[in-house]
């Protein structure tokens, strides 16, 4: 099956435009669920640029949500006289910049680790950032930071942030697609398959890994800045969350690890399951996530897309001998 190269981005933009109609037709509760879905999908794709494409599954990406959000908040509060739009632009620039600096500094040593050791070391990085943020008074982590309201007075903030997340998520998705089809993306996939062989064949693995890490971190940080504005008030605990660290892996695992659309499918599904189907059963969330994880690892390690691919292969195998 051959696709024209422009089809995928057109599909992404079309899907985003359809989703953008959501707030006009959906009741407010579902707009909130939609917000969480789109935000999670954006994060999942940003995570997957490193975790899915290159196979470096980070267990500490909440570090970048937190660093981005706090950097933006600290600077925005110094310039609170600016117009809301400018303020958001400033916040995004500062938050993204902080994540770029942090990730570039961490990338060199930490990307020498592989597999589970990288995952756990990233968890360590996340906890160090969180504890420092919480305990050093300058960062105001335990006291919390207020963010100025962004939404225009004529608009419901829930709708406004839904569209903002959607725009950001679409951009992240397009960036991921650009990487996916580029030489850089092919290099990342070769790192996932066999890093040593890739290196032997002349793929600049170190440079590619570091670049993917920084891109992934910056995109995560930008989404974190928007998230902080949507919350309006953040403390350390509300941005450096271990359940975010976990969910980012589960999204990709559920949708299909190392695919372009898998993380989006996984994020939509998981948020829908936990928020809508299990919405009344808060006591049950941990158990449900754990059970899902166990079933996925044992039953469908390729996720939803893996299952679909399995069906296709089997159907083709079933029809082939008849010809």
């Amino acid at each position, binding site marked *: 099956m051959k696709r024209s190269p422009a089809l995928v981005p057109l599909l992404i933009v079309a899907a985003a435009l359809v989703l953008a109609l959501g707030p006009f037709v959906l009741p407010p509760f579902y707009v909130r669920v939609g917000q969480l879905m789109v935000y999670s999908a954006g994060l999942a794709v940003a995570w997957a640029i490193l975790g899915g494409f290159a196979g470096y*599954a980070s267990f500490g990406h909440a570090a970048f949500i937190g660093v981005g959000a706090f950097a933006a908040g600290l600077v925005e509060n110094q310039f609170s006289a600016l117009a809301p739009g400018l303020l958001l632009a400033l916040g995004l620039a500062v938050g993204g910049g902080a994540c770029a600096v942090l990730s570039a500094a961490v990338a060199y*040593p*930490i990307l*020498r*680790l*592989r*597999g*589970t*050791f990288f*995952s*756990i*070391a990233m*968890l*360590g*990085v996340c*906890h*160090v950032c969180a*504890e*420092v943020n*919480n*305990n050093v008074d300058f960062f105001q982590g335990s006291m919390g930071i207020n963010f100025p309201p962004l939404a225009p007075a004529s608009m419901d903030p829930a709708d406004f942030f839904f569209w903002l997340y959607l725009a950001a998520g679409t951009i992240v998705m397009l960036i991921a697609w650009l990487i996916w089809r580029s030489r850089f993306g092919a290099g990342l996939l070769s790192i996932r398959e066999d890093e040593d062989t890739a290196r032997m064949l002349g793929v600049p693995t170190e440079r590619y890994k570091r670049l993917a890490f920084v891109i992934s971190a910056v995109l995560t940080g930008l989404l974190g800045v928007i998230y902080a504005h949507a919350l309006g008030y953040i403390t350390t605990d509300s941005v450096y969350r*271990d359940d975010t660290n*976990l969910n980012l*892996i589960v999204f990709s*695992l559920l949708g299909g690890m190392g695919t372009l659309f898998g993380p989006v499918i996984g994020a939509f599904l998981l948020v829908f399951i936990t928020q809508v189907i299990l919405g009344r059963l808060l*006591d*049950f*969330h*941990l*158990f449900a*996530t*754990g*059970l*899902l*994880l*166990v079933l*996925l*690892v*044992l039953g469908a*390690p390729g996720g939803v897309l893996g299952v679909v691919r399995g069906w296709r292969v089997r159907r083709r195998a079933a029809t082939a001998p008849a010809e």
Partner: protein
Amino acid sequence: MSLVVQTLADGLVLGGIYALAAVGFSLIFGVLHVINLSHGILVLIGAYLALVTSQALGVDPLLTIPAVMAVLFGAGYAYQRLLIQRAVDRSPLGSMLLTFGVALMLQNIMIWVFSPDMKSITPSYAFASFSVAGITFDAVRVSALAASLVLLLCLALLLKFSPLGRVIRATAQQTLAAQLCGVNVKHVYALTFAVSAAFAGAAGIVIGVILPFSPADEALWTMNAFVVVVLGGVGSPAGALLGGLLLGIVNTLTAQYVGPSFPNVTMFLLLVLLLLVRPNGLLGNAFSASR
């Protein structure tokens, strides 16, 4: 001066207990190459079992150790045979996520059964203490330390001299060669898991005696075990002891001289730095797989 010595002594006592809590994690990693993220849960199960049985029977919590170890031995064997064995040969991330899923489920069940509140086991001698050369020791902590050192010694002897220990060590060194010599590797994997679950349970009792605990603590004990193993090296009680003592000293020193909320920072910094600088651990056997 005496404050320094007191801090070091407290650190050593705490470290002995960290070592016991980590030795099972180390064994599983050394033999099965699985990072068992449900290790902290096994520790807590031990603590809760001891709480329930010592209250029901009115006996000293440390006396429940053999019974709790037996229960967890069986549970660990079944857990490995039924669940983990199916993911052992897949990617390391797969088995790690599997154990994490189990940890989440068990944590949720614990919250239902025991409530999310802090619990503690209080033996009759809870507030007794004695002092040697101006340094104070709590009777509880010392008996907990003694229990954990005895258990570590038992495990070391078991691994070194018993037929089971020999088979476990052989499997850890060369799985394929062990298999060729007639070792039933699946059975050995399950036995290893059972042994480390039993020791995790024993550690839980010792921990329960000296510290309050709640279902949310499981992540802390898993991370502690990970740091201890990274510090000391994989698969041996001696490595776990060294790593545990170091972690205990580092924790009490930072709590005393930097600030009570900083042990976590130093612990994770230590973890990241050691993984980078010396991934083999200080005693230096395995963990070469990290590169």
